[in-house]
C-alpha cells in the first residue's frame, strides 16, 4: 500500500475507514525507524511503549467515533519540545537525562488532537547550528546523500520525514532552522509568524526569534499541522491574542492567482549566489509566472546586515536563556564540585558543546557594560530597519520569493571549521526571523541530485495565503513527491 508515501489526509481517510488501525500505522513507522534510522541518526529517542499506548487510545476513540481528523497519525517532535516524562535533551549533554514534568503547548495540542508521538528527533545543540553537527548525540545524515548534512537545527526532523520514517514532524526556527533543513531534504517547512504558535515548553534558544512549526511532505500537510498548533496560549505572553486564527482553506482559484504579485528582491540574487541554484529558482519563478502570478522586481536594501544583527541578538538572548543550566536544579551536574564556582564552571564547561559556548560568550560580550550600545543596541536598530524594508516591500507585492539557502546540502565536516561560512548559509532566512514574518520553504528542483528549496515570505499572519500558493504550485508540479531512492521502499 506504500503507506510511507501517504499524505496526512490520506492517512486520516485510511484510519477513518478502518482500513488500518492506529496501532498498525504506529508499528509500521516504528519498524521503518528501526530499519533505517541507524543510517541517519535522525532520532535521539523513540519511546515505543508510549507510542503504542497512545495508538491504543486513538483506536478506541476511532472505534467510538470520537476521533479528530488527526487521531491516530504519528508525528515526530524535535527534541526541544518538552514532553512529560519523556527525555527532552535539546541535543545537549546538559539535558541528556532531563525528564520534563509537563508537555509543551504544541505537544499538548497535538496529543489532544490524537496524534501519536513516535519519537524525539535529533537537532543541533540548543538549536544552535545549520548542519545538525553540533548535536551531542551525533551528526544526522541527509537521506538524499549520506555524506551530506541534513541542515539544521531541525536536522533530525527533516531527515526523518525525508526518509519517510515519520509522516510529519515538528521543528523550530530561530534563524532558518525549519526552512533550511526542509530545503536540504526536499521537504516543505513552515516558519509561522512570531506569535502564531505558543513557545511554552519549547526550550528557548533566542526568545524573540524562536517559533515552532511543521516540517512535512507538502504544503497541505503543513497546513493541517499548523492549524492544530496555532493560536493564543495564556502561558505565552508573546503569543498573539488579537488575531482570529481561522482554519486554513486551501482553495486558491485561477482568478485569485491573477491578482497576486510576487516580489523578487534583487539583493537576494547577487553574484555570491550559486549559479546552478539561481537557475533553478528562476525556473520556479517562471513556473509561477506561467501559472498566472504577477512577478515584480523589488529591493530589500539593508538585508546584508541581517546576519551580524541576528548573531548578536540571538546570542545575547541565548547567553541569558542558558544561564539556568548550572547544575543546581536540573540537568547535568559535574562530579564532586568543591565549591559553588567549581560547580558552575565545570558543569557548564562539561555540559555544553563548543558552538553553544561560543554563542554564550558572544552574547555575554554583546550585553556587557561598555559594549551594549555598540553591539546589542545597534543590532536592534538594524532589526527595525530590516522590518521596515519588508514593510515597504509588502506595500507593492503580496509575497517575496528567494532561495532558502545559498547552497544545497554540504558535506558533513565541510564547514565546521569555518563558522562564518556556516553562518552565511542562513543569509536568506534570518531576516525573516528578525522581522517576525512567516515563510515557507518548498522544494523546486535538484542540483547534483540534491534538493533545492525556495522560500516564500508573506506578510504578518498570512500563513494561510502562503500555504495556499505553495499548495497551488505543488498541485501543478511534483518536486515535493520525490523520495530518496535508498528509503523509497517499505
Amino acid at each position, binding site marked *: 500500500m506504500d503507506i510511507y508515501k501517504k499524505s496526512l489526509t490520506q492517512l486520516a481517510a485510511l484510519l477513518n475507514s478502518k482500513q488500518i488501525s492506529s496501532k498498525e500505522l504506529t508499528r509500521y513507522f516504528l519498524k521503518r525507524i528501526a530499519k533505517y534510522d541507524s543510517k541517519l541518526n535522525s532520532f535521539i529517542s523513540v519511546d515505543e511503549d508510549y507510542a503504542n499506548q497512545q495508538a491504543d487510545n486513538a483506536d478506541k476513540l476511532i472505534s467510538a467515533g470520537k476521533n479528530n481528523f488527526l487521531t491516530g497519525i504519528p508525528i515526530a517532535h524535535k527534541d*526541544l*519540545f*518538552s514532553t512529560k516524562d519523556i527525555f*527532552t535533551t*535539546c541535543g545537549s549533554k546538559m*539535558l541528556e537525562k*532531563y525528564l*520534563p*514534568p*509537563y508537555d*509543551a503547548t504544541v505537544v499538548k495540542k497535538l496529543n489532544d488532537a490524537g496524534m501519536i508521538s513516535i519519537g524525539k528527533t535529533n537537532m543541533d545543540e540548543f538549536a544552535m547550528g545549520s548542519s545538525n553537527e553540533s548535536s551531542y548525540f551525533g551528526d544526522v545524515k541527509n537521506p538524499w546523500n549520506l555524506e551530506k548534512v541534513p541542515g539544521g537545527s531541525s536536522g533530525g526532523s527533516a531527515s526523518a520525514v525525508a526518509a519517510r520514517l515519520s509522516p510529519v514532524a515538528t521543528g523550530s526556527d530561530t534563524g532558518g532552522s525549519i526552512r533550511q533543513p526542509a530545503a536540504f531534504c526536499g521537504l516543505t517547512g513552515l516558519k509561522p509568524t512570531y506569535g502564531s504558535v505558543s*513557545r*511554552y*515548553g*519549547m*526550550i*528557548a534558544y*533566542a*526568545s*524573540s526569534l524562536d517559533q515552532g512549526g511543521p516540517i512535512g511532505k507538502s504544503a497541505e500537510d503543513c497546513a493541517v499541522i499548523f492549524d492544530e498548533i496555532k493560536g493564543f496560549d*495564556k*502561558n*505565552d*505572553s*508573546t503569543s498573539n491574542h488579537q488575531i482570529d486564527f481561522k482554519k486554513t482553506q486551501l482553495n486558491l482559484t485561477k482568478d485569485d492567482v491573477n491578482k497576486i504579485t510576487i516580489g523578487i528582491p534583487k539583493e537576494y540574487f547577487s553574484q555570491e549566489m550559486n549559479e546552478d541554484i539561481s537557475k533553478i529558482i528562476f525556473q520556479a519563478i517562471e513556473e509561477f509566472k506561467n501559472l498566472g502570478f504577477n512577478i515584480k522586481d523589488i529591493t530589500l536594501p539593508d538585508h546584508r546586515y541581517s546576519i551580524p544583527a541576528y548573531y548578536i541578538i540571538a546570542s*545575547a*538572548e541565548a*547567553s*541569558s536563556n542558558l*544561564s*539556568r543550566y*548550572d547544575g*543546581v*536544579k*536540573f*540537568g547535568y551536574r559535574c562530579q564532586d564540585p568543591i565549591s*559553588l564556582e567549581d560547580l*558552575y564552571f565545570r558543569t557548564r564547561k562539561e555540559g555544553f558543546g563548543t558552538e553553544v559556548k561560543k554563542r554564550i560568550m558572544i552574547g*555575554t560580550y554583546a*550585553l*556587557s*557594560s561598555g559594549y*551594549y550600545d555598540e553591539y*546589542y543596541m545597534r543590532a536592534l536598530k538594524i532589526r527595525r530597519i530590516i522590518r521596515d524594508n519588508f514593510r515597504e516591500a509588502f506595500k507593492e507585492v503580496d509575497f517575496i520569493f528567494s532561495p532558502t539557502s545559498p547552497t544545497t546540502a554540504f558535506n558533513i565536516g565541510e564547514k565546521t571549521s569555518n563558522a562564518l561560512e556556516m553562518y552565511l548559509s542562513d543569509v536568506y532566512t534570518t531576516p525573516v526571523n528578525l522581522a517576525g514574518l512567516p515563510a515557507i520553504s518548498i522544494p523546486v528542483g535538484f542540483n547534483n541530485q540534491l534538493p533545492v528549496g525556495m522560500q516564500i515570505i508573506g506578510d504578518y499572519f498570512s500563513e494561510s495565503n502562503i500555504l495556499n500558493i505553495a499548495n497551488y504550485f505543488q498541485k501543478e508540479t511534483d518536486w515535493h513527491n520525490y523520495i530518496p531512492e535508498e528509503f523509497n521502499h517499505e
Partner: protein
Amino acid sequence: MSDWESVIGLEIHVQLMTKSKIFSSSSTAYGAVPNEQASYIDLGMPGTLPVLNEEVIKKAIEFGLAINGQISKKSIFARKNYFYPDLPKNYQISQLDLPIVEGGYIKIQNDQNIAKRINILRAHLEEDAGKSIHSKKDNCTFIDLNRAGTPLLEVVSEPDLRSANEAVEYMKKIHEIATFLKISDGNMQEGSFRCDANVSVKKYNDKELGTRTELKNINSFKFVEKAINFEIQRQIDLIEDGGRVIQETRLYDENKNITKSMRSKEEANDYRYFPDPDLLPIEINEKFIKEIKDGMPMLPDEKRVSYQEDHALTNEQINILLNNSDLSQFVDEVIKKSKIEPKKLMNYFISSIYLKMNKENLLIQDMTITPEDFCKIINAVEDKKISKGNIKQIVDILLTTKGSTEKIIKKFAKAQDDDLENIDSLIDKVISDNPKQVDDYKKGKTKILGFFVGQVLKIAKDSDPGLIKEKIIKILNKV
C-alpha cells in the same frame, strides 16, 4: 564633627500583597514548607515562560499615585543577569529603563520638625529571589524557592535625606502608605518591607557628594537608624584619619552594631541588563489609571488632617488608625453613625475592640462585630443604660456567640437596673450607718464624699463610681 553633613538615599523593597506571584500562579503565603510554593515557572524549568499578574500592576499604580509619581504609559521588564543558587533562572526579571513609576515625592517632618519634601526617583517592579539557608551542621546550603517570584516594588529615593532620623521618618512614611493602601502587609519580620541605604558624608560647604557605600538588606526601623548612624561615624572617622571611603556594599551586623564590607565595586556584577523578550511592554492608559485612582481610599496624610481637624482625635489615636486602613474604615463608620464625640468614641474603641485585637492577635475582620453593633453599645453607655465596663464584656460575647446585639445590651441594662436598685438601698444603709460623716458633709466638708463612694464600692465592686457619687449627692442633699 558638626561641619560634616551626611547624605542618604534609600532603596526600599516593598513586597506587594497579592495572592499569587508576579509571573506564576503559585501562592505568596509566608511560612509554607520549603519549595511547596514553587511552580515550574518559579523553578525556571526549561521552556517555561513568565506571565504577568495584573494585580501587581494595580498595586504599583496605586503606590505611584500615592507618592505623586508619574505612571509610565509604557513600561518594560528587563533581565538582570547574575549567577546565584537561589535565583533559579540565574537572571532576575526587573525593570531598568521605563520603570512603572517615575518621579514623585512625599513629605516628612525633619529633625527640626519642619515639613521636608523627599523626592523619589522611581519605583520599579521585580521578582524576589529564593532563600539560601547555609547549614554549618550539615556542611551544605539548602535552597528554598517559595519566595522566588514574589512581587516586589523597589522604591528608590533621591539622596535627599540628611540624617538617620530622617531616613527612618521617610521609611515610616512609605510603610504607612504601603500598609494603609494595602499595597503591602508591611511585615518587616517576614521581610515584606526591607531596605538598602546609600550613605555618604561631605563637608557642609562641599558641592560634590562624597563616595557612598551601600548598606544591604536592613529590615527594621531601629536597625536602619543604627546602621546609618554607625556608617556615618565610620566614614567621618576614616576621612578625619586621612583615609578615604571606597565604594562598596556593606552589611549591617545587628549583634555587634557595626557594618562590614561585603564586596567592593571592582567585584561587583556586570548585570548585563536587556529587555526581557518573554514579556510584552506593559501599556497603561489614562482610563485604567483613573479607575484605580477613583477606587483608592483617602491617603494617610489627608486622613491625618481630617482626623485632626474634623474630629479632633489625639495623635496617638490617629497613629493607631493610620496603621491599618481596616480599623480606620471601621471607626469612620462608627463616627458617621454615632452622635458621640469622636475622641471619646475612639477611647471606647481602643479600650475594648482594639485591646482585644492586640491581645489575641486578631484582625478587625476576625471580630464579628459591625460598626452598627458598636454604635448601639456605646450609645447605651452614653444613655447610662450600661456601664463602660460592659463594652468589653459585650465585645467578648459577640466574638464567641451569635446573639443579637440589642438583646445582649438589654440583658446588661436589666442587670444594671437591678444593681441600681440594690445600690440605692446600699447607699441608704451607708448613710444611716455613718451619721458623723453625714454631719461633716453638711458642714461643707465635701471631700468626705469619697468615703461614702468607697464604702459602697466595697460591696458593689463593678459599679460605676461616677454614678454612685451622683446618687450619694442626691440622697445626702435630701437628708
